[in-house]
């Protein structure tokens, strides 16, 4: 268990490519932090720097009260779960789990006891004498977890551990990992490109884009108050609607139409207006025309795809709201409107 502190940690490759711009954040003891972003955003590099598999070229990294920039991965008191599990194919499950302990000079009796304990926790007891090739994807994933758990580290690192599993198993393992982490109370860093995993598992989410931190916050903060249009469009499915609009005399207008809502203290000029698809009401007091072109029926709810002021727009309604292609009036909840700078994309 440990606090992890990154102080302006950055990575520049010898060829001059800056994979991770200097980033600073602190992870509290026992916290589950998810690094999320599109491929190539530097999230894996950041994780690998924490693991010690990648050299840190700028800043300092502390795990616990120790600066570990130059500490070997084996001595950082961490455990890592890899995307393809990285199990040793020639060893049985028992040996796979116990290998890290064996290398640390633990006695055979203690190893056996700890392996049994970890196996029990992960329902692997019957599989201990199998080889990885005789296991299913989910079981392999659990062995990889067991290998991490058995060492009793102060920090767990997960590198997209669920991306090789099918959708159903992924949902199940998501809950198992989260529950395990809660139970053990070990500080964890989890890398994923799947925003659903990020939202459901994280205590705090760090959104990365091209090597830079876009936003750090709880899932609710990230979802409801994205710091930039990038975060707004990356998190949430379907993503937040982003449309070109203008602020005139304190009112937001799209294509010179009627006022959509008050702009607060935002100065006049072009802006990007963001609104979540579910923060829109059909009919009623609405006075913004919305052209529905496609209705996606999803059982519990419907997604209405169409155009607002000539720009693509999606509305999420409950199953009790009837909708058909055609023009209808909608109402955007004023408190749910998010304004972004039209140039930089940052929240205003």
């Amino acid at each position: 268990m440990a606090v992890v502190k990154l102080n302006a940690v950055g990575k520049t490759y010898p060829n001059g490519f800056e994979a991770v711009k200097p980033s600073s954040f602190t992870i509290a003891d026992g916290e589950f932090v998810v690094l999320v972003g599109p491929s190539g955003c530097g999230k894996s590099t950041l994780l690998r720097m924490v693991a010690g598999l990648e050299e840190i070229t700028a800043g300092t990294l502390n795990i616990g009260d120790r600066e570990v920039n130059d500490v070997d991965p084996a001595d950082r008191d961490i455990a890592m779960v890899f995307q393809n599990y990285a199990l040793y194919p020639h060893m049985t499950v028992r040996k796979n789990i116990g290998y890290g302990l064996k290398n640390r000079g633990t006695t055979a009796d203690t190893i056996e006891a700890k392996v049994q304990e970890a196996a029990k926790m992960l329902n692997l007891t019957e599989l201990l004498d199998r080889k990885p090739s005789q296991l299913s994807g989910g079981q392999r994933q659990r062995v990889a977890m067991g290998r991490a758990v058995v060492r009793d580290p102060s920090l767990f690192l997960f590198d997209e551990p669920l991306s090789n599993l099918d959708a159903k198993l992924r949902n199940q393992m998501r809950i198992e990992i989260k529950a395990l982490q809660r139970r053990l109370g070990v500080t964890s860093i989890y890398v994923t490109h799947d925003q659903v995993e990020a939202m459901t598992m994280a205590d705090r989410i760090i959104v990365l884009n091209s090597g830079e931190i876009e936003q750090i916050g709880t899932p609710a903060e990230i979802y409801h108050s994205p710091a930039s249009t990038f975060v707004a469009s990356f998190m949430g499915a379907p993503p937040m609607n982003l449309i070109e609009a203008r602020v005139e005399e304190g009112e937001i207008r799209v294509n010179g139409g009627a006022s959509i809502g008050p702009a607060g203290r935002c100065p006049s000029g072009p802006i990007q207006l963001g609104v979540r698809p579910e923060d829109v009401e059909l009919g009623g007091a609405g006075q913004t025309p919305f052209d529905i072109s496609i209705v996606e029926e999803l059982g519990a709810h419907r997604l209405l795809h169409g155009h607002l002021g000539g720009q693509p727009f999606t509305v999420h309604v409950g199953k009790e709201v009837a909708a058909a292609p055609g023009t209808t009036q909608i109402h955007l909840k004023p408190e749910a409107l998010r304004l972004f700078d039209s140039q930089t994309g940052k929240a205003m």
Partner: protein
Amino acid sequence: MTEISQPLEKATTPKARRKPIKWSVVGDHTVLILGAILMVLPVFMVFATSSHDKIEIARNGMQFGFGDQLAVNYGKAMFEKGGFTDTVDGSLMLMNSLILGFGFAIGKIIISMMAAYAIVYFRLRFATLAFWVIFTTLLLPLEVRILPSYEAIQRLGMANTYSGLIIPLIASATGTFFFRQFFRSVPEELVEAARIDGAGPVKFFIDILVPLSRTMIAAIFIIMFVFGWNQYLWPTMITTEESMFTLVRGIKQITQGVIDSNDIPEFGQALALSIIAIIPPVLIVLFFQNWFVKGLTESDK
């Protein structure tokens, strides 16, 4: 496989029970059988001839039938001391050959695995260059460097020793190349997992890489053992004492010795030794083949 299922279907109609002759199968088998006979016949002739006495062989040449001297010839070939010094017999030469074969194969595997390990896993300057330099030595067979090698070994006082026989031959570009290709196919994450598990370079090599490479090791062992076993030129140069002779070399020595003394050469014994010389490589191939094929089909990585 298809032949097995057909009789079951046709069992209901007794008339159609006789399988139609598949001419393509007959053709295939004819070719295969002819090929097999072509390959085995010389070996069989050597074996048959080795059961005749030397006069019979000298008079009638190679034989197809068996004679009555089988046990005598093999016994003499294996256990009768021969040569100028009367110190060497077949069993000693067999022993020498086995030492050369195993030493050669095992030495080559160890050296080339370690070379490949260094090239693939350590951030060495000029590692690629080093690899290609090693690789180009494939173009230089032993025969090219045989004089300098002999000179060096001679001066080191290693002539007529097993180490002198084996060590100059164990550097292997082929082995290094195969192991390099194999190591490069080992997933990077396995290396990283081992690092986090606290396995240093030596532990990683012994605990992970060697067990993973065991099919590769078996394959290279087969090739290298046979290659080492059949070495002729280098043992001929480096061993002058008869007690160090290898089988392949000794076969010639048996006939050579008697030709000089104007007697009829002991062809029977020489052929018996040839047969004995064939057996160990065949056994090695049979033994490792099973493992090798299993390893190839049952992907473990």
